[in-house]
């Protein structure tokens, strides 16, 4: 099948999804223990979108993410340890503790970066694609964004320019059915947001966001087009978040039936089932154990790392200031 991932690639996606799941579970536990600071947005249940979409990318390709970016970060190749260290504000974090979990970047890996202004990642990726077109590079930019973000004006402006100029950018709409607490039906009058791609003469495809292989293939087709200079495309991946909007979420707006139904379609389980005939359950279980151990070790190490020391940043120091 065109652009299907290889078994190895699928196994790697499986592994990364487990890393993300263990990360989210660990954060949930530490939050309950009062050990986290600030809001944290978990993506349990929707790992396949971020992991599979980014599996298609090369290091030189750029990715912009959201406030709910853990799967995107791990997908784009970041180690879990500096991610955890950043989430806990440590000097060893990906951004030395300055960014926090919503804003993580790793420029070498092409992740630039998380963004907590909803919608802002969309023009951000589009601008990177503009840069690549001007420079004649063969890299592509990808933006992963939410169903809530699709209602922002900046989404419209960016998609219009991307399509108008045939920029090498791929838009991955992670449709998890909710904005912050409101269902998508309270945010837009259309259930399938990808219908809007026609308004930009841009191809679009809806995929099962809990099926890593389906996401990979659909995204890979769009990335291929973009890389060939044929312009942008939109993938709408339907998924669901099992947990609250963030650790501060008091819940109550997701029905137990919906959660149960979506949990029955756990993306990790779907990949497991697909892979077990190929590589055997034992190998997959071993991967799970190793991934779990990696995350546990990362938590242990990160949590004992030092906090950063404050210094006036030189780029800002030239100005009048109060320090």
């Amino acid at each position, binding site marked *: 099948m065109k652009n299907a991932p290889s078994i190895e690639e699928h196994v790697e996606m499986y592994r990364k999804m487990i890393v993300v799941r263990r990360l989210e579970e660990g954060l949930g536990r530490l939050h309950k223990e009062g050990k986290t600071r600030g809001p944290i947005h978990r993506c349990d249940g929707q790992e396949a979108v971020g992991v599979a979409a980014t599996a298609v990318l090369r290091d030189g390709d750029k990715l912009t993410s959201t406030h709910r970016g853990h799967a995107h970060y791990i997908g784009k190749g970041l180690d879990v340890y500096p991610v955890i260290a950043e989430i806990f*504000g440590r000097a060893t974090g990906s951004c030395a503790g300055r960014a926090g979990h919503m804003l993580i970047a790793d420029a070498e890996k092409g992740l630039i970066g998380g963004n907590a202004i909803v919608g802002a990642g969309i023009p951000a990726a589009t601008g990177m694609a503009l840069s690549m077109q001007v420079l004649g590079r063969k890299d592509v930019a990808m933006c992963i964004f939410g169903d809530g973000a699709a209602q922002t004006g900046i989404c419209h402006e960016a998609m219009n320019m991307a399509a108008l100029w045939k920029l090498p950018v791929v838009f991955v709409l992670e449709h998890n059915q909710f904005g912050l607490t409101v269902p998508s039906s309270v945010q837009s009058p259309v259930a399938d947001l990808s219908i809007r791609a026609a308004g930009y003469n841009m191809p679009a495809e809806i995929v099962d966001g809990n099926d890593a292989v389906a996401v990979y293939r659909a995204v890979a087709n769009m990335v291929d087009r973009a890389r060939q200079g044929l312009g942008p495309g939109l993938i709408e991946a339907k998924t669901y978040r099992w947990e609250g909007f963030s650790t501060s979420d008091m819940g109550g707006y997701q029905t137990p039936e919906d959660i149960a139904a979506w949990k029955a379609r756990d993306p990790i389980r779907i990949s497991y089932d697909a892979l077990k005939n190929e590589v055997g359950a034992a190998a997959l279980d071993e991967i799970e154990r190793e991934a779990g151990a990696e995350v546990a070790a990362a938590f242990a190490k990160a949590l004992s790392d030092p906090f950063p020391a404050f210094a006036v940043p030189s780029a800002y120091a030239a100005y009048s200031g109060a320090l």
Partner: protein
Amino acid sequence: MAMMRYAEALNAALREEMQADASVFLFGEDIGRYGGVFKVTKGLMEEFGELRVRDTPISEQAMTAMAVTAAMTGTRPVLEIMYADFVPLSLDALINQASIYEYIWNGQVRMPFVLRTQGGGGAGAGAQHSKSLDSMLAHVPGIKVVAPVTPADAKGMLKSAIRDSQPVVFLEHKLLYNTRGEVPEDADFTVPLGKAATRREGRDVSIFATSRMVLEALKAADALEKDGISAEVIDLRSLRPLDVESIATSIARTNHAVVVNEGWNFCGYAAELSATIMDRCFDDLDAPVARVTLPDMPVPYSEPLEMAVLPDAGKIRDAVLRVVK
């Protein structure tokens, strides 16, 4: 009087004004069924229905523009913008629309809307969720900007804001929602916009502060007492119009001033305070006004970094010591 949290006081103000005036309606992200991420609008959708308490898409730019024109055509909208950091998205509607029409259209329209938002740091929310952009908002003519600190003011000023015939930007602070205080329960209770409040009297220096910084200034004043310095603490409450008379009266007695605002320093709200004091009180001043503000840089995430940049009682005390030395 009842003991209430700041968020509850706001909720009471909204409820009372909605009961009294059917043209008052609320809209904003997650304010309806969920009651708002800071729970200010809790229970209001149940009481007033979905037409008057409306959950919205993430569309701050258009929503603010809509508040302006809804207000022109018979309603009194109260718009919640979840974080002050998103207010840049509202600025075209404030600067190019709300600011101009009363004058430009020769008095043909009024725009009685309220834009509620909350800013400030200290919660580990990072560079895009911790800002105070007071100065940008207070720069816009034709718009009032207020920032109550006590639960009583929160209620009384929100009621005044809703009844005002001009646009009012109503600045809350994420670390104030859970603070408690006595609040009048009388539906007629309001607090006028445009008046500062002396929170502590003093002889040696006047500390003018906004929003949560008033609480830090009061702590600083306690510490300064031990240093043998008597500090007056004035809660400005109304950033625009500014109560210049109260400022001048205080400085006439203390001859020293420190201004405190949680926004950036350069072109910040504290700069206006400093300049206004220069305009009005030059001859009364024994020392230059000191500004205590956020340094000119993003708010970092990690706790020790965030604490290093946020203005606080310690930094206010240091500034006072420099000024009165």
